[in-house]
């Protein structure tokens, strides 16, 4: 064990975890928005809208994240027509390709989490709202959405942790995130165990923080039934 290397690489890896956190937070925000929209579409009675939303979540939950990143980064880069459009400004950058892949992936899972949360809302609550004469739009925004968010907190916390670990795949499209920098240090020192232990420790610490924040939120906003 090369302890000196572990100590020396720690600040570099810590610095790289800022990119990891950036990738995570931006893709989670976009993903939550996508998830919410598609969860609502899934509850739509129109069969086409419903099937479209189901298809999206089916495809993105059914294929590996690595494959999705490669298709978006290397695959779309092969289409000559795309390179002449404004889309290329975004797709040219590995950072945005990674964000698009992560957001679409987590969006698919989030839509499923939210959909099942909507479906667990007891009809009695909606009926109670209706009996008080509250318009159904207000019932949706003020009753159904808050309850759904509370219901989905534990599952969503899991999704955040999974996504945090998923961001390590950004290093495959040249981004220097935590894993990317770890690999870089290994490429000059040839000592993978030491460096990956430190990188793993930082990932574990991030999981610890996320886990506790979710636990706190669950306690604060949760209700016992």
């Amino acid at each position, binding site marked *: 064990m090369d302890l000196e290397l572990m100590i020396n690489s720690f600040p570099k890896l810590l610095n790289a975890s800022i990119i990891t956190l950036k990738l995570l937070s931006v893709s989670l925000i976009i993903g939550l928005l996508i998830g919410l929209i598609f969860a609502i579409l899934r509850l739509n009675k129109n069969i086409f809208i419903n099937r479209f939303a189901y298809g999206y979540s089916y495809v993105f939950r059914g294929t590996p994240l690595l494959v999705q990143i490669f298709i978006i980064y*290397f695959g779309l880069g*092969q289409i000559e027509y795309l*390179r002449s459009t404004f889309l290329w400004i975004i797709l040219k950058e*590995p950072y945005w390709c990674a964000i698009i892949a992560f957001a679409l992936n987590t969006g698919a899972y989030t839509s499923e989490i939210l959909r099942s949360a909507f479906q667990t809302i007891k009809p009695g609550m909606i009926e109670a709202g209706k009996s008080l004469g509250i318009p159904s739009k207000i019932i949706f925004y003020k009753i159904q959405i808050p309850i759904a968010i509370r219901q989905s907190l534990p599952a969503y916390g899991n999704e955040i942790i999974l996504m945090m670990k998923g961001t390590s795949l950004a290093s495959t499209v*040249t981004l220097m995130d935590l894993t990317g920098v770890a*690999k870089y240090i290994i490429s*000059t020192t040839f*000592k993978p165990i030491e460096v990956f232990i430190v990188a793993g420790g930082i990932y574990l610490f991030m999981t610890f923080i996320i886990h506790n924040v979710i636990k706190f939120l669950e306690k604060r906003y949760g209700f016992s039934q």
Partner: protein
Amino acid sequence: MNIFKKTIFSVLASLLIIGNVSASDKIKIGTEGAYPPWNSKDASGKLIGFEVELAWSLCRYMGKQCTIVEQDWDGMIPALIMRKFDAIMAGMSITAERQKAISFSQGYADEVASLAVMKGSDLEGIDTPEGVNLTLGGSTVNKALKTLTSALAGKTVCTQTATIHQNFLESGDVGKINLRTYKTQDEVNLDLASGRCDVALAAAVAFTDYSEKSGKPVVLVGPTFSGGAFGNGVGVGIRKDDTELLKSFNKAINQARKNGDISRIATKWFGFDASM
């Protein structure tokens, strides 16, 4: 019946022991299989290339039974140290940095590095001497590096990770550039063609090989590089404590060179004699 079982068991056990005795005659050689024409894979997934053929030849000279295994480039040296295989033949240049971790046999081939762009790039007309040997230095080399520094400023330069090419680009010889590193040379080629990379650096043959096979208009620009950060030729990487194997590889390379095997195989795969 019991005696019968015991006999079979002891026969099997002795076979295992005999197998172990000859184990030193069996070696595993690690290669990347993704850096044509040095080493690559054919359509059926079989390893081919200059180093694969040379490895078989060297093994015949050493009188050893060889197996060639595949290993990702960025894990090549750690895998050797962890005894996943006994020797590296993967277009790996002999550099001082790598020699801190492993030993190298004498060089068996050498090949210059070059920058490449897509046809039509503004870097195409860059005015530098044909070749730059960083070890020699001098005013021509300094002038060439200066020209490159201003030409590459603000450009995205791509190369494979953990290579001599990355070392050179990070050495500051060409100033501060926007460097992007990839796991494989294939990915560098893809992003050069797509336009994400303005310019790429690798062994010159890696680009000409890609250009030929893909039909993409890849053009070599600037000088060819050698010496300095580019190391002293390509050799067989061997664990530091494995001095016996190092000796037999050096001897085999001498014999193969004398008999013209290295230059014959090199000419076959590179189109010119890259042996040394």
